[in-house]
């Protein structure tokens, strides 16, 4: 019985190897966040270029980084967030981009370039811009809801609100409310933000970075500081859920496309990046993932529904108040200390 099984397995693996090679198509290995690309576009690219794309997924920058550090090879394109691009470039994992092979770089929207950590696209090309805002239940907020971080000070919603369990985001919201930079290292500004945040904390159900979206769906929480993608994702499950960007400004972050040094099919990788930067393609991608691809040629093809969504295509006056969270290196400890004090406060 056991031997039969072994023989069968050997036969199957032989078949896989044989047929796997027989197609003879070029292959492109992509390592991406899940649900982060319109798969129709992937199919279209495969047909146009007579190649095969293999998609693999990660759930956090750290997982992806650990896997690559541990020696995983074979991936061509990866989609890391800004700070991770810097780290990967420093570690020598990334290919320095030959910009002549990506003519569609001209479509990038200059407004959003400062939010990328690699402003000259030396190693990376911005893929999608996401932001942090407030997911809320419209029925509880009322018609006169004016999106502000100070909603967390409202005692009417005590015990039914959450903020992100992420020190940079939570302290950042308080800093923004006070009109300071989210990357400040001035101790008086951080102290002031700490006081505000401790006041907000007394009204919170909890600091929560993950389950808040389910909490919104089940109406456990009325207001949650959250990531745009998360909130848009659960809107289908409860129509009462809305999303707003606070008027004081917020965090933007970009995910980027990079080519790994070990890539075997660089030309195909360049072609794929160029393909995603095409205006029409980018528009289709935005419609699918509900994030903003910073592509000025794409906006004209967007449906009205997306065009009128201020949390995707932000008005300039809010955009100007937004920032990207920078890695503060040693100064991270300033934030850890404030965060410890906020968490321990009564």
């Amino acid at each position: 019985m056991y031997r039969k099984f072994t023989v069968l397995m050997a036969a199957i693996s032989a078949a896989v190897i044989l047929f796997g090679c027989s197609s003879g198509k070029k292959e492109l290995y992509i390592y991406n966040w899940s649900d982060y690309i319109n798969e129709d576009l992937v199919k279209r690219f495969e047909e146009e270029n007579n190649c095969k794309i293999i998609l693999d997924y990660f759930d956090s920058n750290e997982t992806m980084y650990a896997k690559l550090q541990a020696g995983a090879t074979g991936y061509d394109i990866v989609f890391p967030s800004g700070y991770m691009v810097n780290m990967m470039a420093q570690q020598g994992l990334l290919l320095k981009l030959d910009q002549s092979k990506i003519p569609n770089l001209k479509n990038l929207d200059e407004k959003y370039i400062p939010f990328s950590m690699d402003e000259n696209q030396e190693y990376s090309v911005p893929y999608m811009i996401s932001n942090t805002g407030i997911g809320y239940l419209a029925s509880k907020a009322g018609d006169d809801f004016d999106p502000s971080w100070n909603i967390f000070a409202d005692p009417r919603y005590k015990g039914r609100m959450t903020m992100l369990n992420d020190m940079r985001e939570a302290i950042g919201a308080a800093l923004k409310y006070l009109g300071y930079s989210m990357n400040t290292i001035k101790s008086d500004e951080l102290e002031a933000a700490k006081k505000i945040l401790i006041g907000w904390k007394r009204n919170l159900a909890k600091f929560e970075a993950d389950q808040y979206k389910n909490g919104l769906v089940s109406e456990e929480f009325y207001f949650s500081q959250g990531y745009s993608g998360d909130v848009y994702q659960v809107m289908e499950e409860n129509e009462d859920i809305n999303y707003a960007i606070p008027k004081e400004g917020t965090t933007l972050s970009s995910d980027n496309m990079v080519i790994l040094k070990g890539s075997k099919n660089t030309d195909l990788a360049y072609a794929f990046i160029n393909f995603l930067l095409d205006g029409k393609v980018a528009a289709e991608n935005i419609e699918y993932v509900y994030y903003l691809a910073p592509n000025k040629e794409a906006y004209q093809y967007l449906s009205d529904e997306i065009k009128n969504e201020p949390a995707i295509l932000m008005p300039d006056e809010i955009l100007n108040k937004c920032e990207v969270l920078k890695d503060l290196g040693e100064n991270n400890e300033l934030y850890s200390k404030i965060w410890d004090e906020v968490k321990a406060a009564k």
Partner: protein
Amino acid sequence: MKSKKLSEIRLSMPSLLWLIIFFMIPTIIVVIISFRNSNPSGGIAPGWSLHGFSDIMSLSFAAILWRTIKLSFLTTIVCIFVAMPVAIFMARAEEKIQNLLLLLIVIPFWTNFLIRVYAWKIILHPEGLLKKILYTVGLIGEHGSLLYNEGAVLLVLVYTYLPFAILPLYTSIEKFDFRLIEAARDLGSGPFRSFMKIFLPGISQGIISAVMVVFIPALGSYVIPDMVGGPGGEMLGNKIAQRVFTDRNLPKGSALSTLLILAVILPGLIRLFIKKSNLKDVLFKRKTPGVQ
């Protein structure tokens, strides 16, 4: 005699190896890392320092340590008080009922721990039935929540560790000779006094085991305060997670873990000590009735 010892070593080898590889060595690594320097990208920098332990002097750490110890202590007390009558009832019940009750206690373990905690989140949900009933009765406000406070953490901790308290109590009570109580009563001791003086000392080993298996894991709780605790419900385990995952400071995380390990080993050592001295007591007591 010699061959008996050899076979003993051979028998305990697998578990000993297991302990050394998966407990001793990782623990030692954690202790070593706690004395290293950190670098901002989350790694370990060359050189040695006590910087990892710098947290311990801060006020915010004292608050978390106090909460951790308080919650673990309360969990232990409540578990023992609830488990005691259950264990007594089980030990004195008919064998059929005994087996049934044992099965009922073990059955929840067939369901994943996380799912059981989620079940509590549903039971205590602010839009749930329980909350609605309490609201109608007027015990809680419209926007109030039963979740995300220390009470919820305590409740779920007790729920989680209760079986671990019942089982050792049950085994030691089952062995207890209830005729001793009858004898005490015959000799004029009241029910309370015979309970305190005869019954409790008689099952002291069971009580100590129950306290250990509840208190020690409760100290290291991470998931429960994370899921049902509020913004002020952090325990030591959550702080360690924060140090490692968000602060990217391995030495600081390791320093807190080292403290936790010490806190866990210390009661274990105390238990060992008590066991030894108690053994003498037990031997001594066994002799006395024989002499009488």
